[in-house]
């Protein structure tokens, strides 16, 4: 099972480009997409989900061009968009039945499948209430359930942990990890720790381009030896921020502990080298200060 993306470009108009000459090959496992707002993550996911067409480039799933034959991937696709909605007057059963119809699933086992998915996302007790009365977290869970309805081989999650609280995020990560054995999972998130915990590979994007792709260790190497921590007087923080890429700050009485990227040539006296994390590398790759 392979998803092969070659030289994908998406231009919205003369001045706005969503994706630029993007190439990547995916096999079973979890790919985490990292990038700032406007990096092109959602655009890429929409193209793979066949709801947006590229301006240039090709997209093959198991050797079939899914730009010209989108139904080939749609049968095995699970997609959780970033800002999806629901019909508020339907209850969870009715809604999942509707989505099942979209995916072309029916038969006697459908209701049992829906029951089990609802149980899996813990919505059984509320399944007969209209979805309009659900909380944000509950809606997100029904979104996850619908994505899994058709035993997808390709799962696309665009910011899936938005609206989930910390504990629920942990459960979601576990769920995704369990599914990854026989699936291509593409996951975007602003929360680097979500990606860090579950992704087999990470792709860092910026301005519609793929900056790099590799295992977490590969990505972390970029910032190795570039990350430092230093204690500064609180009053100096503003001027420090204007010169360095600050990753994190923490107050310690009247001083501030600052974690920053030096980019190899300008280490502030008193700094201590720190072990680079995925977040450090991501910021190192996407920020251009110092």
């Amino acid at each position: 099972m392979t998803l092969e993306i070659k030289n994908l470009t998406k231009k919205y108009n003369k001045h706005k480009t969503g994706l630029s000459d993007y190439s990547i090959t995916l096999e079973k496992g979890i790919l985490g997409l990292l990038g700032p707002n406007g990096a092109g993550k959602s655009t890429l996911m929409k193209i793979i989900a066949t709801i947006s067409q590229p301006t240039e480039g090709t997209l093959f799933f198991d050797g079939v061009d899914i730009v010209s034959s989108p139904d080939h991937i749609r049968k095995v696709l699970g997609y959780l968009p970033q800002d999806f909605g629901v019909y508020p007057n339907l209850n969870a059963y009715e809604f999942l039945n509707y989505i099942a119809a979209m995916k072309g699933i029916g038969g006697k086992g459908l209701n049992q499948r829906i029951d089990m998915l609802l149980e899996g996302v813990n919505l059984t007790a509320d399944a007969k209430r209209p979805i309009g009365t659900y909380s944000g977290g509950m809606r997100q869970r029904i979104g996850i359930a619908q994505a899994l309805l058709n035993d997808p081989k390709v799962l696309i999650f665009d910011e899936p942990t938005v609206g989930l609280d910390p504990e629920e995020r942990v459960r979601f990560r576990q769920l995704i990890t369990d599914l990854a054995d026989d699936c291509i999972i593409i996951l975007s998130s602003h929360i680097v720790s979500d990606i860090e915990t579950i992704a087999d590979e990470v792709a860092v994007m910026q301005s519609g381009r793929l900056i790099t792709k590799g295992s977490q260790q590969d990505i972390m190497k970029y910032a190795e030896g570039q990350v430092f921590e230093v204690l500064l007087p609180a009053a100096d923080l503003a001027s420090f921020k204007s010169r360095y890429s600050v990753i994190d700050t923490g107050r310690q009485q009247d001083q501030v502990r600052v974690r920053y990227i030096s980019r190899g040539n300008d280490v502030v006296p008193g700094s201590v080298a720190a072990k680079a994390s995925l977040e450090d590398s991501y910021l190192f790759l996407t920020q251009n200060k110092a």
Partner: protein
Amino acid sequence: MKYFYNIIKADYLQRTRSYSFLITLVVTVYIAYLFVPLHTAKYTTLDVPGFKGAYNSAWAGYISGIMTTVMLSMYGFLLVNNSIKKDIETEVGLIIASTPISNFSYLFSKQLSNFLVLLTITGCTFLVSIIMFFVRGTDYPFVFSAFLYPYLIFAVPAMSLVASMAVVAEVFLDRKSILQFIVYFFIFGFTMASIKIQGADSLITLLDPFGLKVITNSITNAINSQFHTHINDTSFGFIFRGKQDFQVFVFEGVNWQLPFLLSRIVWIGISLALVYFSSFFFHRFDFKQSVSKKNNKPVQLTADLVSDEKEMISPVGISRALLPPLVFDYSIFPFVKTELLLMIRKGNQLLWLVNAGLWIAMFFVSLPIAHSYLLPVLLFLQVIRWSDLTTKEKTNRLHYFSYAAYRPLFRILPAQILSGIIVAMVMALPVIVRYAIISDLFAVVNIINGSVLIILLAVCLGIITEGKKLYEIIFFMLTYSAVNKLPITDYLGGAPHDNHLVYISVLPGLNIILVLVSFIVRNYQSRHI
């Protein structure tokens, strides 16, 4: 004052930057072109039996101004009665509610925004009326004031009132769109009917919100003085009389009286007073979540719910191996079922009682009345069920799923069309059955064609404009036409037609075009989010 201006500006721009508004504008410009027909036309817009006005500036300007007032007062309400609703749907209302803006300031800004939208359209018809005067070329001189005054004195106060009525309707009838339509058109119809009842010299003329009695009096006075008759019967609207003998009279405009001019200002004051009054009852976006009445039970934070919020996704997860095997089923019937469910649950459930009453009545009243009056009204009462047939996916942000579904174009769209047609057919069933019993196949085919047309119109306009407004306005105009038996827009075949075969073949042709356009545009949309 600056922030007030910014609110109005943003609201106005948001509403006018839409396909729906643009198309409404184009349709209005076309209608404005028809407002002042030539003497050779088979219809008239201000009907005085046996007489037609000479095409001078006063006739062109006043008739155009008064027709704009009447027509825009009628469907302008539909165009602007969603300004607060938009803030509810987008949840911008919650942000507004947390700002220091007073209820009156907010509602007043909405009234002004409504007013500006209506004035934009009025301005366009004003320009069209002047252009048409020159295009048609008459021997009479162009008098600018003859065009300006009727718009300024009739249309502007009327539009202010319509803008206010839309705000008041939204405040008191919340999101009950269909009830808003019914109440507004009852008031509108009553006002129009009262114009005919009022005596020429009655002081009540001053209470006419649209000022129409003044112009009908002026016209009948002009005819009576030029031909020494006693005409007092005038009607507004698109009236088809075919070719009849007529005499031409010269209309020089209205001799304005100060009390009448003051009454126009008073009507603007009344419109603002209505907004002020309604501000005491404005919900300020503090209500329960929008679900159907049946299901609109408050969400109680019960122990179950609280514990559920904490339990979240099952710790054991979802084991794919334990799920039942997949069975593929690509039929469209599950969609039809859901679409029907959504339509049935839409809107106030009490309306089903009204539907049932009209439906049963269609079995027992005379067949022409059932066909020409009850059926169009019953179909129009379903407007909110049909207007979002193809827009609700986007409104509810479900289009991500439906566009990524397996063959959406040949499964979901046909299901939406089919379910709409099923509802329309059920509504029309009593009349269809009665015509079938008396073997009037023409009438049966006309009703089926017409019912399919309004569904396809909903589908096509929804897809093109991605909104409901244009369809609601056009459907209303079609209903108005059907009830008034205007041949050219008689979509249900209730009016007599010269050539049955031509009529019966036009509607299927239109339906095929609508289907083709719908499929082509939706095909593009589904791959270009």
